[in-house]
């Protein structure tokens, strides 16, 4: 057996070991939050580097194929998503530490749980086999359940966590049921085998497999909070501690998409068009529902939660328009995920830095005249809002541009129009915040954190990235711009179909 495959597993391994190590370290009193966070960072960055080693080229390997019976594949696609997930973890730690420090009941275990969930997510985007993907999903989800409800003396936390747990396990049961049905239909749970089976037996009755696929799809829709299964997200996002919300809203969604894209593109592309009609309506309803919820929220956190539903809708537009014509739909998802990751991570992160969940700067109104107290923070916040609203000169615009082009290209102009409408509605609730921050004379605010330390730096970096992603171009040839991102997304897409 060839051991050089180990390099491909390094990210996974380092995160896993990190998780275990942190679990062991956390009881030790001398390791306070900040120390632990540095340890966490060490492992995350280690695996990030390990992942970045083979970046920018199209590859696809199944490490230790005989050992794992090629349950895992590590290709550009997974590498791409892994890097986003790891970045999510890193940002969460960097930005969140400040939050974890000042809020009680958050002890070192959270970092180990965080790493576990990251581990699960990486696994999720690398797996090629349904049941192992189920396990990965469960690893990620369960650790997140715990993270949400970690502060067990806050009702909202525990309640949110419990609701998430019940509905989540209901969803995963559906997932399991789907696996079982597919197993019953295709006598296998390996994606490649299933797809070859489907290819071979086109003529036969596929009801079981299709139903199973549908159930898996439902789970996916649940996890990304698409329309009929979106109710939990508002409560859970609202109930969770802010950094965790950020982590869930951006990173987890990315991982899920990574999995389902592989699932759909590789495995079920034969049968995809069976679902395309219903997904069409799901996308529309998701966007509408999200917009409806978002327009009247007073709490920023809930607004962002609702808006994340809308963004799910945008992603679903691209998801629907994936088809044989052109790769732009699929790649647009992969690209938009980055855009959304940066924006929402930035917004939530900023919120988690300057606000607290229940008493400090919760609602829109609490931000009156914020720009006079912290002009730069206000500017960053505005940048995130603009990017979320998809205003040009932010990466959010390019992402939307990309998605709508894909939709139109594959003939879903109506979806594009509705997406546009949702965008236009979103302008209202994003700009409201900017208006409040800038248009009011400065009001006295209690203990606004200063603009120094690591979290603001990270957030600023993300803001810069957003702008650069919006305007950056190939004029400066050696510096990666929009084109670079788009090309990487294309590589990731292509790598799905080799080997």
């Amino acid at each position, binding site marked *: 057996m060839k051991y050089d495959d180990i390099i491909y597993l390094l990210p996974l391994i380092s995160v896993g070991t990190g998780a275990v190590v942190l679990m062991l370290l956390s009881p030790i009193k001398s390791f306070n939050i900040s120390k632990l966070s540095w340890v966490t960072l060490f492992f995350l960055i280690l695996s990030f580097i390990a992942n970045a080693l083979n970046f920018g080229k199209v590859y696809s390997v199944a490490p230790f194929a005989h050992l794992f019976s090629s349950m895992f594949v590590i290709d550009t696609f997974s590498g791409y998503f892994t890097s986003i997930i790891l970045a999510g973890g890193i940002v969460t730690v960097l930005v969140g530490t400040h939050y974890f420090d000042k809020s009680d009941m958050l002890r070192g275990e959270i970092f180990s749980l965080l790493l576990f969930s990251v581990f699960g997510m990486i696994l999720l985007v690398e797996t090629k086999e349904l049941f192992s993907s189920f396990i990965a999903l469960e690893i990620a989800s369960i650790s997140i359940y715990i993270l949400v409800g970690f502060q067990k003396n806050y009702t909202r936390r525990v309640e949110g966590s419990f609701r998430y747990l019940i509905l989540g396990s209901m969803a995963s049961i559906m997932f399991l049921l789907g696996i079982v049905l597919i197993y019953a239909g295709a006598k296998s749970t390996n994606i490649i085998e299933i797809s070859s089976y489907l290819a071979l037996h086109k003529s036969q009755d596929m009801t079981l497999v299709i139903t199973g696929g549908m159930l898996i799809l439902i789970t996916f829709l649940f996890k990304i909070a698409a329309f009929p299964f979106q109710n939990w997200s508002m409560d859970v996002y609202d109930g969770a501690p802010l950094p965790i919300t950020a982590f869930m809203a951006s990173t987890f969604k990315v991982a899920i998409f990574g999995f389902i894209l592989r699932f759909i593109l590789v495995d079920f592309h034969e049968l995809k068009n069976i679902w395309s009609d219903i997904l069409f309506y799901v996308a529309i309803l998701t966007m509408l529902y999200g917009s409806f919820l978002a327009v009247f929220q007073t709490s920023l956190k809930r607004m962002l939660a609702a808006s994340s539903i809308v963004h799910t809708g945008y992603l679903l537009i691209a998801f629907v328009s994936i088809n044989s014509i052109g790769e732009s739909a699929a790649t647009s998802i992969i690209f938009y995920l980055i855009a959304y990751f940066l924006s929402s991570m930035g917004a939530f992160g900023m919120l988690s830095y300057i606000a607290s969940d229940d008493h400090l700067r919760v609602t829109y109104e609490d931000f009156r005249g914020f720009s006079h107290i912290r002009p730069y923070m206000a500017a960053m916040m505005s940048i995130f809002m*603009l990017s979320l609203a998809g*205003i*040009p*000169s932010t990466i959010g*615009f*390019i992402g939307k*541009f990309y998605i*709508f*082009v894909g939709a*139109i*290209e594959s003939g879903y*102009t109506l979806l*594009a*129009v509705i997406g*546009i*409408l949702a*965008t*236009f509605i979103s*302008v*209202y609730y994003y*700009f*409201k915040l*900017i*208006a409040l921050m*800038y*248009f009011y004379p400065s009001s006295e605010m209690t203990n606004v954190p200063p603009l120094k330390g690591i979290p603001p730096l990270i957030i600023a970096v993300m803001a810069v990235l957003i702008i650069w992603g919006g305007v950056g*171009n*190939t*004029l400066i040839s050696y510096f990666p711009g*929009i*084109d670079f991102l*788009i*090309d990487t997304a*294309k590589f990731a897409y292509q790598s799905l179909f080799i080997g």
Partner: protein
Amino acid sequence: MDIGLLSFIIFLPLVVSFILLILPVDMKVTRNIAFATTVVVFLLSLSIFFQFRLTDYMQFREFHPWITSYGIYYSLGVDGFSMIILMLITTLIPLGYLFLWKTKKAKGYWASMLLIQTGVTGALLSLDLVLFYFFWESMLLPVFMIIGIYGTGNRIFSTLKITIYTIMGSLFMLVSILYLGVAFYNEFGVWSFQLSDLVQITILSNLQRTLLFFGFMIAFAIKIPIFPFHTWLMQTYSNSPTGGVFILSAIMAKLGIYGIVRFVLPLFPHQYVEFAPYFVGLGVFGLIYFGIAALMQQNIKRMFAYSSASHLAFITAGIFSLNAYGMTGAAFLIVAHAMATGGLFLLVGNLEYYLGIRTISGLGGIAKKAPLLTVAFALMLLCIVGLPGTNGFVSELLIILGLFQYNHYVGVISALTVLVAASFMFWLFQRAILVKTDNDISELKDLDKKEIFGIFGLGAVIIAMGIYPHWFLYKIEPTIQHYLLDILKVGVAS
């Protein structure tokens, strides 16, 4: 890469404003540097004006790849029409600065003004539709800021209203742009959003073209604004600060017109011709409708808002008249009206600065106190009214000619313009400026040196363009003829 003249014109204000925002300089320095910048830009555009060749169409082209994977290019160019508007913008803004000089606004105000200039010139000069949309949207933010932060009255509401309203329109335009791009891709197999490429699309059905046409038109109709989409205008104008309303009325509204001529006409000539009657109708209707509405307004800014709406409707009618007279006249009226309205708003800004916001009935007796201001006011007013000797007359005459050629009855109705503006403008002049009332205007000061220079500079241009219009027109003329070719093609085709 080499930076062309146009890029310089576009991005100099942007760079300067960022530097100013970051550096810890106080308001005065910011203001002076900002003014210097605009002057430099003005000189640059002046050089363009003089280097402009009548022989060929698009000039000073710049062409660099931007988002190559989607064939989006950073491509700029200027033709006679955009050149005259560029001149207008770069001339107006410094002159406007002279008026805003004394406003005690933070540095953000001046920085935003510069940003607006960048957005406006960028939208004006870009030939790639995505690039155009890019500038078109981003010029909204500084306006949003200026009105919201420095505005008065119910500013936040009206700011959100204009922003959302405009963005709604431009999003429809975005869809149309994307659709065109995809259509081009489907037909030619490469991505491009170049105007010169997109006009070659042939595969679109008539229905699709019509829908896209309206996708574009709604954006511009809201910006201009054309009749049913105008309600944001009045609130915004009456609530925004002098600088904001100056920019909005004098420059931004004109860009809507410009967009129609630059993009809609070449992209959808058939629809342009097919729907011309409706827009001419809307235009002439709006001319009279807004004119009458202006009559009884109590707030001067509101009244001017209505009056500019009326003129803009007239311009719209002009560009849809499908002949050289109408379009030249429209181009000319864009300039004339921008100058006059801009000047008027600046003067009203002066009144507000000294006397606070007042209704018309709260003013009066200004003429005795501030004769220079009164003279300037009268000058601008006469240009609005379209009195011979001002460029207002030339342009209105040309548009009437064009509309008459388009349809005699429409032409006759549009000739009512000589009555519409006069009716309320002179009444306003009587009540607000001339007649002595017992309102206290002791705070009022007459124009200072800078303002005299600014406003009478405007006045001089207005008169010059009225007495010797040809010298300004012959540079637009070939471009207009070039536009007409599209229409003629349609005439041949249908």
